[in-house]
């Protein structure tokens, strides 16, 4: 690696770290004020646990030598003795690693107790995240340590499946086990709207996500190439545009309002959908794919909320799970030489579908089982009166906006 390669990696790492803030702000803004502190502290705690877990075990599990490609050996990571030249890349991988369990906060907001969240994060960092990284990105550091999905030919360059589907599946599991927020569904089983308390905060979060995404895509480059980086930025920008309009327009037809949360979800959907194969989306394709993702997230959110009756306050299941899965199929359609539309037949798309399903099932099932266990042993939700007064007061002993008069009828 040249100096410029590693400087680029440092930049991408910083940018991916900032995505944590981006997700957190996006989620916080569209949920209620009385658990904003809880969301912040959970995010910081997730990162704290993740850093320790990564260096203690996760890094080895994910990127250590492994013949079978199911998990690596954590032998060397305990002493934090990495080859100096690889440290920048390792930090980049850490930044992606930390991101995964932050995303499901969008579905878990408002009701899960803090200590349970710590256990959730630890479980994700010790099992789900490192193994899914291993399976698809196992050779990121050591070329001989490839994972089994990778060997199969599963393609997922920047994590449509490894990051987003996995996060979406964990979000689904958590929301199912926790159940909806009090008051979300009436006696008639119809959803009640619970408007977000600070949309500008979500807007700021979205700026961070848009700004960081090109670097997120770029960090997976083997070395710095100006042309590639610029091309990846272009893909991200076009996809975000597509997602914006792809969600805004159907939302307008449905409600005759220009719906900001849907539009923001659409932007994010556009960014998510290009993650699997940004380099095979030339010309205007990212715009079209992004529009599809935007429309998908619009439908997905309504489906999850009204038909499936799952409470997903910030839409994490739809944006990351559903759209991520769509994105993970794209290499099977568009990858040059292998994709369906690029003369590759059905082979690749089947691999993509199977690999995505494997990752989704693994993440969902293990997280579901783990949370059921916690629920049986300790309960995972705050008591009703605590939830109604807000986790901030009950678990954190203060309010996010002390002194501000807030009247919230839910």
């Amino acid at each position, binding site marked *: 690696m040249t100096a410029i390669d590693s400087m680029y990696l440092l930049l991408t790492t910083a940018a991916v770290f900032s995505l944590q803030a981006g997700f957190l702000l996006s989620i916080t803004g569209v949920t209620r004020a009385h658990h904003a502190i809880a969301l912040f502290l959970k995010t910081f705690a997730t990162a704290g646990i993740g850093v320790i877990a990564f260096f203690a075990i996760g890094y080895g599990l994910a990127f250590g030598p492994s013949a079978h490609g199911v998990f690596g050996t954590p032998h060397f990571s305990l002493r934090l003795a990495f080859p100096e030249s690889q440290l920048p890349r390792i930090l980049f991988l850490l930044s992606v690693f930390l991101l995964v369990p932050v995303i499901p906060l969008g579905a878990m907001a408002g009701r899960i107790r803090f200590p349970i969240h710590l256990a959730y994060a630890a479980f994700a960092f010790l099992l789900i995240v490192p193994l899914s990284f291993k399976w698809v990105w196992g050779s990121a550091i050591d070329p001989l340590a490839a994972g089994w999905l990778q060997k199969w030919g599963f393609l997922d360059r920047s994590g449509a499946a490894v990051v987003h589907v996995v996060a979406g599946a964990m979000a689904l599991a958590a929301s199912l086990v926790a159940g909806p927020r009090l008051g979300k569904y009436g006696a008639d089983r*119809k959803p*009640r*709207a619970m408007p977000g308390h600070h949309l500008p905060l979500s807007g700021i979060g979205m700026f961070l996500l848009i700004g960081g995404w090109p670097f997120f895509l770029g960090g997976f480059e083997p070395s710095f190439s100006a042309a590639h980086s610029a091309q990846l930025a272009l893909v991200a920008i076009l996809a975000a545009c597509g997602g914006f309009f792809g969600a805004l327009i159907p*939302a307008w037809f449905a*409600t005759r*309002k220009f719906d900001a949360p849907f539009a923001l979800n659409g932007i994010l959907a556009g960014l998510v959908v290009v993650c699997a194969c940004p380099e095979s989306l030339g010309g205007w394709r990212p715009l079209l794919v992004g529009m599809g993702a935007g429309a998908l997230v619009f439908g997905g959110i309504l489906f999850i909320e009204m038909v499936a009756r799952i409470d997903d306050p910030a839409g994490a299941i739809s944006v990351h799970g559903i759209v991520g899965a769509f994105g993970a199929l794209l290499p099977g359609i568009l990858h040059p030489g292998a994709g369906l539309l690029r003369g590759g037949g059905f082979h690749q798309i089947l691999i993509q579908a199977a690999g995505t399903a494997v990752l989704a099932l693994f993440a969902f099932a293990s997280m579901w089982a783990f949370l059921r266990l916690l629920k049986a042993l300790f309960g995972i939700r705050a008591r009703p009166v605590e939830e109604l007064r807000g986790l901030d007061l009950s678990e954190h002993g203060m309010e996010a906006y002390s002194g501000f*008069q807030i*009247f919230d*009828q839910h």
Partner: protein
Amino acid sequence: MKMITAYIQPEKLDDVKRELFLVDVRKMSVTNAHGCGQQGGYTENYRGVMQEVRLLKKIRLDVAVNDHFVQATVDAIIRGARTGNIGDGKIFVMPIEQCYRIRTGEQGGDAIG
């Protein structure tokens, strides 16, 4: 002396204040409130989800006046707040037994105006 308490639409406050000034009522207190009146069972479409809207934003206006000012005050509020639509609001008149101006300690009808 009477306390006249009115719940009106927030965007009509300026109009109501103007009408009150015209009849020389210049003292009042205003509070944020939420109310349901005739719109009790009203529902609204929020992001494609039908939502039972229960409590709408209102402005609560408290005006204390001497007895002979009551009718003029009520009429002024009605003039300023009426649009003819549901939600226009409601006015309550309640008795005041005593009133003090803190600065001077004045009492009764002198203190109120």
